[in-house]
């Protein structure tokens, strides 16, 4: 269709705070996209957590109409992409829906690791990249330096970069024109059959699952019988539409379009991001490239503080799963915590978000256990097993070998902090593979390291030793054999399985000592003194004693004052109900959270 040459699909790649939101606003204004205010309100409402953390979890596509000087009208589809490594597969699918990307770099801050990772991803997808140097209005802007970085790190010609200030509106016409001139028209439109990419989906209580899609070839309309190519599921299209910016039903979606569709499928879990939809009657032979099955990388137990909240928790995780296919759960039980769920997450941020949502949206007091990656264990008898809960790690005598997942990390930081970053990497068992000088004062390091080592605090530590200037990104790499042991924490001789973790043998003792010290700080004093121990395979390697509390009495009990006094005591008792009783020891909910933050 001749329409095609008038469509451009693009996204914006940027590090947090480099100005993506501001630039998007400018583009919306410049194209006089109607309902602007309305959309903003809607987007802002979308998710508190996204806003608080300054990250995008879901994509928010929007269609803009641009008319150039010659009076030619274009349709721009801007796809806002998720911005965190946990969601890198989702990012890659959003990128795959586009032919081009604006690469936005803060003129004062320079290129960050995540930007490089996403830019590389975009290049691997053969996308056209338009570098935009933003915030050139700032006195601290250093344009030549950024141009140097673009050339050195990403091999992008510096003269192609557009100078912009999203804040004052500088460079906006140039950007719009570059989108028309430099980003190719929608690709792969001449494929003989209909192929539609699902790049995201959300759950809607009325419509069921709403898929965000990009039509590559052919067309799709209401009533079409279609096939999900990943697993052959057949379904029927109930509705198609575009984002203008609100969902607006259309008769049909054509090749090159970005929009949404609703099928008969009712559960998000049954929709696979990255899947290709084709017509049942004349199906495509090959899926669009890049589809992968998403698998949780991090597991943790989630338990209600109050065991009677189990059913409520069950309903909550089921509801969350409706809108988050990457989140998995299965029931499990813990000696210390009773009945709960083993949950799988894409990464630690994803875990934090889910845990926070259960607390806030479902008003439940919950505990999450120490997160774990998935270990591959080969037992002495040759049996292979996957372990994602330290409690199920077999006895050391039955283990032949343990393999752990690794990542390929890319770290950007000011060269002045080289020593500290190297020390951190050593501590985290990283194998440094390459160190590259980006410019006079920044370096980029690549290293292979265990995923387990970045679970808890790697990013925070990196940020703190580099005064906030370091950034990091990673790709999952292969499994590698490692000398790992299970570290247990005992409170008054009872193993608190929620505190168990799998750690490297060389670090186990130090880690054990640290956890004991931390617990001693966190736990409130009890009626009795409490022994806190760390043990590896039954052998105690560290020990702390929490002294008993000294005073808890009120010398005030007038005759007939029984009722008053009882009220106070009952109140104390209620307060203790919010704690988890392990043997004789009451452990407050915060302890389970704080212990996760214990750094190595």
């Amino acid at each position, binding site marked *: 269709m001749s329409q095609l040459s008038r469509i451009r699909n693009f996204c914006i790649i940027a590090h947090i705070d480099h100005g993506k939101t501001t630039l998007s606003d400018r583009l919306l204004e410049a194209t006089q996209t109607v309902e602007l205010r309305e959309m903003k309100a809607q987007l802002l409402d979308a998710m508190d957590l996204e806003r608080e953390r300054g990250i995008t979890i879901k994509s928010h596509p929007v269609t803009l109409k641009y008319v150039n000087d010659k009076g030619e009208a274009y349709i721009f589809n801007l796809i806002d992409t998720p911005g965190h490594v946990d969601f890198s597969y989702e990012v890659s699918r959003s990128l795959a829906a586009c032919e081009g990307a604006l690469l936005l770099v803060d003129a004062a801050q320079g290129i960050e690791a995540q930007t490089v990772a996403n830019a590389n991803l975009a290049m691997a997808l053969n996308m056209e990249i338009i570098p935009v140097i933003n915030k050139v209005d700032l006195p601290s802007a250093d344009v030549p330096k950024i141009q140097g970085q673009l050339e050195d790190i990403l091999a992008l010609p510096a003269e192609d970069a557009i100078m912009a200030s999203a804040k004052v509106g500088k460079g906006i016409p140039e950007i719009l024109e570059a989108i028309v001139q430099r980003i190719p028209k929608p690709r792969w439109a001449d494929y003989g059959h209909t192929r539609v990419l699902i790049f995201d989906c959300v759950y809607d209580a009325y419509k069921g699952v709403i898929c965000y899609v990009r039509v590559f070839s052919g067309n799709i309309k209401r009533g079409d019988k279609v096939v999900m190519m990943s697993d052959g599921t057949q379904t029927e299209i109930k509705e198609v539409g575009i984002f203008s910016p609100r969902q607006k039903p259309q008769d049909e979606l054509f090749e090159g379009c970005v929009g949404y569709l609703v099928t008969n499928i009712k559960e998000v879990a049954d929709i696979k991001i990255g899947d290709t939809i084709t017509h049942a009657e004349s199906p495509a032979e090959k899926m669009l490239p890049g589809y992968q099955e998403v698998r949780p990388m991090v597991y943790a137990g989630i338990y209600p503080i109050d065991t009677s909240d189990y059913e409520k928790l069950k309903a909550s995780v089921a509801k969350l799963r409706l809108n988050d296919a990457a989140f998995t759960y299965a029931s499990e039980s813990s000696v210390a915590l009773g009945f709960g769920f083993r949950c799988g997450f894409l990464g630690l941020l994803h875990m934090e978000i889910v845990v926070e949502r259960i607390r806030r949206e479902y008003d439940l007091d919950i505990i999450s256990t120490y997160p774990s990656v998935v270990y591959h264990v080969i037992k002495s008898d040759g049996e292979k097993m996957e372990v994602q809960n330290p409690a199920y790690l077999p006895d050391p005598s039955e283990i032949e070998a343990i393999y752990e997942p690794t990542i390929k990390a890319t770290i950007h930081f000011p060269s002045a902090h080289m020593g500290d970053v190297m020390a951190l990497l050593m501590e985290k068992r990283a194998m440094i593979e390459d160190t590259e000088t980006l410019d006079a004062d920044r370096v980029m390091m690549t290293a292979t390291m265990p995923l387990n080592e970045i679970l808890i605090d790697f990013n925070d530590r990196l940020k703190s030793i580099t005064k906030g200037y370091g950034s990091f990104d990673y790709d999952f790499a292969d499994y590698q054999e490692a000398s790992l042991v299970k570290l247990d924490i005992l409170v008054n001789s009872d193993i608190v399985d929620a505190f168990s973790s799998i750690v490297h043998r060389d670090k186990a003792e130090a880690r054990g000592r640290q956890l004991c010290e931390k617990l001693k700080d966190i736990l409130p004093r009890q*009626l009795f003194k409490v022994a806190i121990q760390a043990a590896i395979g039954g052998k105690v390697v560290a020990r702390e004693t929490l002294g008993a*509390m*000294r005073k808890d009495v009120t*010398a005030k009990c007038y005759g*007939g004052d029984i*009722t*008053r006094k009882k009220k106070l005591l009952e109140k104390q008792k209620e307060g203790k109900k919010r704690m988890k009783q392990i043997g*004789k020891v009451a452990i407050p909910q915060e302890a389970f959270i704080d212990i996760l933050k214990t750094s190595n």
Partner: protein
Amino acid sequence: MNLQAKAVHTPPLGLYLHVPFCARACDFCNFYQEAPRRAELDRYLAGIERELQLRPIERPVDTVFWGGGTPSLLAAKDLERLGNAVLGALPQAPEEWTIEMAPSTVKADKLAVLRELGVNRISMGVQSFDPVLLDRLGRSHLPKQVYHAIDLIRAAGFENLNLDLIFAVPGQTLEAWEADLREALRQEPQHLSTYCLTFEEDTALWVKLQKGQTTKLSIEDESDYYTRAWEVLGEAGLPQYEISNFARPGFACRHNLNTWAMHEWLAYGPSASGQFGGRRWTNAANIDQWLEGVESGQMAEQEIVLLTAESMLADALVFGLRMNAGVDLEELQGCFGVPLPSTVAGLFRDLVEEGLMVQEGPRVALTLEGRLLADRIATAILEAL
């Protein structure tokens, strides 16, 4: 109300009467109190007379306790009217009859009336002998009024005197507390009660704390004040018999002992709490509401709790363990007719092991360390049930 006691063997019976008037509110106090206006006083006295008729007393009362508020704020003739109303309702005179008095209100004519009525125990709210601390507490008396009051009380022939002291007042050093204790001992009272200052919501002191105008001692520091009193008074012949109470042998307050043993006591006057016939209740803490109830015959009772054998046993343990003598487990089980839950027995074993409790035969009692944790231990008992 059914005044027939349900208990198989009749336990001792007490009578608590609340006089809700105070000259002015002390800064630390959140007790229910009214300004002593004549019309109010008259309505109150008439109300008590009516209430005594509405709740007839069919069994000898062992102890009477007039608390407040400030009962001694009443004029001699009002005390007489109140006393006669009580005596008229009793089958026979009580063995112990206590009245709370504020130092500035102690007068010879009042004391004479009280003696005449049969009051035999006086409890005086001294709080401190330090004028600076008294001022800080918003008390309206001076140390010299305390000495004068004690002289009058002795002169009137009273031989059972309690002094209330308060400690852990902002600015009070440990030495100052000991000085207060020693000054109190010099007055040779038969009984001393020591209260740790607490910051009760909505009191003037609490407001000051919220505004950062005063400070609160740390828990560790407070415990030093407790133990200092226990040492000093013990050595001086007034051993501790309950967390806050010290007495010469034979002078423990029987009325309070009965309450802590979960016996029965009746309650008269607004905000008074009673426990009788398997029920615990508190009268409305508002003179109008209380009077309305009394006048209509529909008593304004609040926070009514129906007592079970199990809850009585629990409370007898909670309050009994605050006493140095502790409790006799066999006696309690016999008295309430329920066995001690094994969880509580287990808790006691742990407490003994930790040195917080001692057991001798059927009797268990808290050690000094245990008494410092009495509230926490009480919570543990309630949890174990």
